[in-house]
């Protein structure tokens, strides 16, 4: 479809609101750029960047006013689509049994403003997991159906990003309604807008944006292409799946288990991890019961609890489950990698465990074994 140009995002924000969307986007809170409901387009993180390291995240001031020159933040869009806590149903005792009520309907439609290419792919992966099979997650499906996606191409990758290795960025793939490329200039921010869907075209029609000049489009494309050479990490995808399957007995797992705390942060910040547990509660009267679906993680000891004990009782077996699922068995289960290269698990691991380093070490160890 056609390519348009915008100066500033105020009109787009207003059009999304007019179309009935709640706009979620990046904003500065608690020393980080988080994703939250935006009351105003002025709350975008203009002029803020980030410095990323294993186990470390710091905001930094930029010398331009860019709103999207920061890499992945503390959480992805997952908490908005695949909620940490979902009430599945509730039931009340009646004179002749009990009555089950469905949980409250999901609230209004969300516009996700500023979805990075890696996160866009992650949403597609969660679509496959949570709605692509026989058992659809109704809460996710309802939120996802109503969602409008404004992607943003990356021109400033972070120190822990490796979307190029995973083939997910820095240019947004399919799945967006609109896609932006931000261009900083003397006093104004300009955006080259690619329209991906009819819904996107309607929103753009509402603000009557003009077509982008070819020179501006060229500059935008060139900045995104250049970003591909500035990835902070790499993790060659070739052979990853076989590496995972072939290194289950590697010594490296013992080594990483010495450092891993089994805290579960990596799975919770990962935009593709989907695991949940289900719990039933009753109240004090004994006449009201509820069933809840809550985020879970393979780092939780109870996650592998079966009659007779915990299947993955050692931290080593849990770290191995996480990495081999993301990079190996995910292919068998869902036909793709479970990693999109966003780098969040590296940054938000409190002890800085870096999967790209672990993979490199596993490669080196198995290569050595093979040679020797």
């Amino acid at each position, binding site marked *: 479809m056609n390519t348009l140009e915008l100066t500033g995002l105020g009109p787009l924000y207003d059009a999304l609101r007019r179309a009935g969307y709640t706009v979620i986007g990046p904003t500065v809170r608690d020393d*980080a750029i988080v994703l939250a409901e935006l009351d105003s387009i002025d709350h975008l993180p203009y002029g803020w960047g980030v410095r990323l390291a294993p186990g470390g995240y710091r905001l930094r001031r930029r010398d331009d006013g860019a709103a999207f020159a920061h890499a992945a933040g*503390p959480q992805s869009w997952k908490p908005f689509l695949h909620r940490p806590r979902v009430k599945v149903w509730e039931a009340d005792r009646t004179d002749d049994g009990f009555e089950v009520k469905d949980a409250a309907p999901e609230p209004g439609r969300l516009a996700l403003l500023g979805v990075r290419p890696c996160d866009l792919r992650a949403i597609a992966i969660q679509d496959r997991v949570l709605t692509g099979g026989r058992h659809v997650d109704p809460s996710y499906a309802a939120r996802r159906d109503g969602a409008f996606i404004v992607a943003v191409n990356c021109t400033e990758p972070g120190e822990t990003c490796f979307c190029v290795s995973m083939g997910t960025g820095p240019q947004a793939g399919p799945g967006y309604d609109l896609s932006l490329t931000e261009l900083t200039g003397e006093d104004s921010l300009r955006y080259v807008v690619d329209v991906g869907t009819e819904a996107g075209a309607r929103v753009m029609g509402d603000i009557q944006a003009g077509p982008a000049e070819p020179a501006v489009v060229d500059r935008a494309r060139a900045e995104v292409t250049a970003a591909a050479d500035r990835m902070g990490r790499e993790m060659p995808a070739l052979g990853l799946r076989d590496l995972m399957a072939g290194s289950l007995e590697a010594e490296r797992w013992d080594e990483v288990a010495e*450092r891993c705390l089994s805290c579960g*942060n990596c799975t*919770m910040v990962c935009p593709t991890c989907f695991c949940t547990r289900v719990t039933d*509660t*009753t109240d*004090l009267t004994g006449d009201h019961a509820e069933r809840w679906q809550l985020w879970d993680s393979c780092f939780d000891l109870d996650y592998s609890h079966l009659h007779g004990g915990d299947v993955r009782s050692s931290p080593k077996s849990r770290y191995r489950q996480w990495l081999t699922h993301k990079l190996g068995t995910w292919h068998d289960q869902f036909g793709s990698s479970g990693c999109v290269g966003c780098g969040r698990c590296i940054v938000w691991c409190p002890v800085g465990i870096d999967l790209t380093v672990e993979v490199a070490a596993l490669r080196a160890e198995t290569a050595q074994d093979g040679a020797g």
Partner: protein
Amino acid sequence: MGRPTLAVWKFASCDGCQLTLLDCEDELLALTGRIEIAHFLEATSAAGEGPYDVSLVEGSITTPADLERIRHVRAVSRKLITIGACATAGGVQALRNFGDVEEFASVVYARPDYIATLDRSTPISAHVPVDFELRGCPIDRRQLLEVLTAHLTGRRPDVPGHSVCFECKSRGNVCVMVARGTPCLGPITHAGCGAICPAYGRGCYGCFGPSPNWSGARPNTRGLLPWLDMTEDETHRVLATFNVSAFREEQGPEPLAEEASDDASQ
């Protein structure tokens, strides 16, 4: 059939956990509608005879008399639930396990020979079988209600053993350790508080004791301590609070201040 009876018992402790029961203001009426509180010295001086359907036990075992009394409590209780860091891990008074009690006593008391005390402060489970351990310093009100409600319904209480980080991430806290460098014990601490401290920008103090993610082994303090950005002395102290005996490896009676680094060198 009458309502099940509940007794509340106290050993070496500060009463804070028992008071959590009184703190259940909104639910207290509904609770007493389902349970008869038969023995609870904090709330009333009337003490029932027993036996009791459920006993909540607060406090640790620190004296020879405690040893006798906990056996009595066990004998008159169908279900025994320990509440709080003292009862589940020995409490802050378990600092004595790392020192020399006779020496403390001789410094603190004019007539140390009047003091009948054990040289260690130990959890209830070290002496009698315990049906459920509810952690925290103090325990969390919602979790106490959950445990009692689950008992009344005959289901398993939903008291997950994962880390405080789970609660942080579920409520959308920005990690204070990663984003600010604030030392936090959350990654190795048992969830239950709802990640209150990180929600207010502070690190976790480990009030709920270690998360059982290690299947009986020691929590991975060795993995975490180097990342806390603290001096050796500070890291030593940070583990020496309400759950000291659960977080720290015992090294026999050595004066605290002179003790070398915790366990990083082993």
